[in-house]
């Protein structure tokens, strides 16, 4: 097929939008940690724009989207972008240059790894985080992306629907975060209930705003064409974010006061939940998907705290559970009237779709949890996952990076 200029323009803009989500995550997380760890938290995400940005063009894209091997992994044909050029691919996004699709996918890989960092902020060694990121991208992200989105991937062939990455991005990141934190352990003072005051809530809101903005590229860009389907996914995305933000605000108001941090969290939960569904459901279904997302994530966060697990910035509760609800909701609300390439869901009389969704959710949960645990264990016994107690007390900004976020206390 010839290159379609409109589709190409929209996909390149979308790739740029998704790129901005990673600094968005960095600020979102950075504002929630203590002053002494702001930079290290931001750096954990920002560094991945470099590291994963390189690995993706070298071999990551090939492992995920190269010619299928047994339904479980891509071949090495696209290593170093060999055969990935200005002409469209014959199987992926066939109206845009193959390079455009490749770089759009690169941004997804980067932010998925960045999401995990929220679980282990304020005590994980930067060097260990980098090594973890390389291994995790290679052994967890690339295979799962191939299963769900790769041509010939076994979950794709089964008929699992994941429009923009509820499974590939949010479930994988959330579950891996939970698994990794079991090895890293809680922050010093967490069990003693020492106060861990967020350093800068306006920065959290700035990050949430960038995420919301970038998510239009994430979801509407995943239409891979510039037309009706992109518009439909765009509206579904905004509707779910709005519904979820309002729901979290109300929950927080019932509890005590309408918390700013809570509303920002709700928006992100709604965005995570609509991600797998955005281009398969009618836009108005963003309302039930968003409302339920906030309720599910809110109580999962309470549950996580009750268990005494220091999954510090709730990657599992927000992304893992938001993505899980979204993947199942796709099986409930999907409609072929919205997207002929999709399927009908439960409310349109097709009970099989939710079974396919559930199967994919269970398989990916188990795989992500176990594979992450093995990778984390290997790093823990070789180089160690944590900074020393002294380094942790001083703060990771100084101990890991030799800088501090807010200098100049004496004018």
């Amino acid at each position, binding site marked *: 097929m010839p290159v379609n200029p409109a589709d190409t323009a929209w996909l390149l803009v979308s790739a740029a939008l998704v790129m901005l989500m990673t600094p968005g995550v960095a600020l979102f997380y950075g504002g929630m940690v203590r002053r002494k760890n702001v930079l290290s938290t931001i750096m954990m995400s920002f560094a991945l724009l470099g590291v994963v940005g390189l690995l993706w063009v070298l071999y990551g894209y090939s492992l995920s989207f190269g010619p299928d091997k047994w339904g479980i992994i891509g071949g090495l044909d696209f290593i170093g972008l060999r055969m990935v050029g200005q002409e469209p691919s014959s199987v992926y996004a066939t109206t845009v240059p193959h390079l455009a699709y490749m770089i759009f996918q690169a941004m997804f890989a980067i932010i998925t790894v960045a999401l995990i960092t929220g679980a282990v902020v304020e005590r994980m060694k930067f060097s260990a985080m980098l090594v973890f990121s390389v291994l995790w991208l290679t052994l967890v992200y690339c295979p799962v992306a191939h299963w769900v989105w790769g041509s010939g991937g076994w979950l794709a062939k089964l008929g699992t629907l994941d429009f923009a990455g509820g499974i590939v991005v949010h479930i994988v990141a959330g579950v891996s975060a939970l698994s990794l934190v079991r090895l890293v352990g809680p922050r010093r003072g967490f069990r003693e209930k020492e106060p861990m005051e967020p350093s800068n809530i306006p920065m959290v809101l700035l990050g949430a705003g960038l995420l919301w903005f970038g998510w239009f590229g994430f979801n509407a860009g995943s239409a891979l064409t510039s037309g009706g389907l992109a518009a439909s996914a765009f509206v579904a995305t905004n509707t779910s974010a709005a519904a979820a933000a309002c729901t979290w605000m109300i929950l927080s108001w019932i509890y005590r006061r309408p*918390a700013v*941090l809570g509303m920002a969290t709700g928006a992100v939960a709604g965005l995570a939940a609509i991600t797998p569904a955005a281009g398969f459901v009618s836009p108005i279904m963003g309302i039930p998907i968003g409302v339920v997302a906030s309720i599910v994530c809110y109580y999962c*966060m309470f549950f996580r705290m009750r268990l005494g697990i220091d999954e510090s910035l709730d990657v599992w509760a927000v992304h893992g559970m938001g993505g899980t609800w979204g993947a199942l909701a796709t099986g409930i609300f999907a409609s072929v009237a919205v997207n002929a390439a999709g399927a009908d869901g439960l409310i349109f009389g097709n009970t099989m779709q939710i079974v396919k969704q559930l199967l994919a959710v269970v398989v990916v949960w188990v795989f992500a949890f176990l594979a992450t645990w093995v990778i984390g264990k290997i790093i823990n016994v070789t180089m160690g996952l944590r900074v020393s107690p002294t380094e942790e007390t001083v703060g990771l900004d100084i101990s890991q990076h030799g800088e501090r976020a807010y200098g100049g206390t004496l004018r």
Partner: protein
Amino acid sequence: MKKIEAIIREEKLDAVREALEANGYLGMTVSEVSGRGRQGGLTLQWRVGEYKVDFLPKLKIEVVVLDEDVGRILNAIANSVRTGEIGDGKIFVLPVENAVRVRTGEEGENAI
């Protein structure tokens, strides 16, 4: 000479300033401080639920007064900041050995 150090609620700064002015003292030093008294810390909201911070924001006002004014100024400050609720603060009185006005070199009571 005595130094009066008053730890007060942030929102009571104007009230103290006016009370000191009315009693003839224009000069003072104000700093933002954190601390806690018997009431402990402050409960804030996290994304769900709450957490406690140990120290509350307060203001510290320092003013050096003549010995004969101590009682009058103490009362003026206390009356201007009192709400009757927990967290009204505390006032300390310390002896001052000497004072120097830097510009002129005046010392002692002439310098305050």
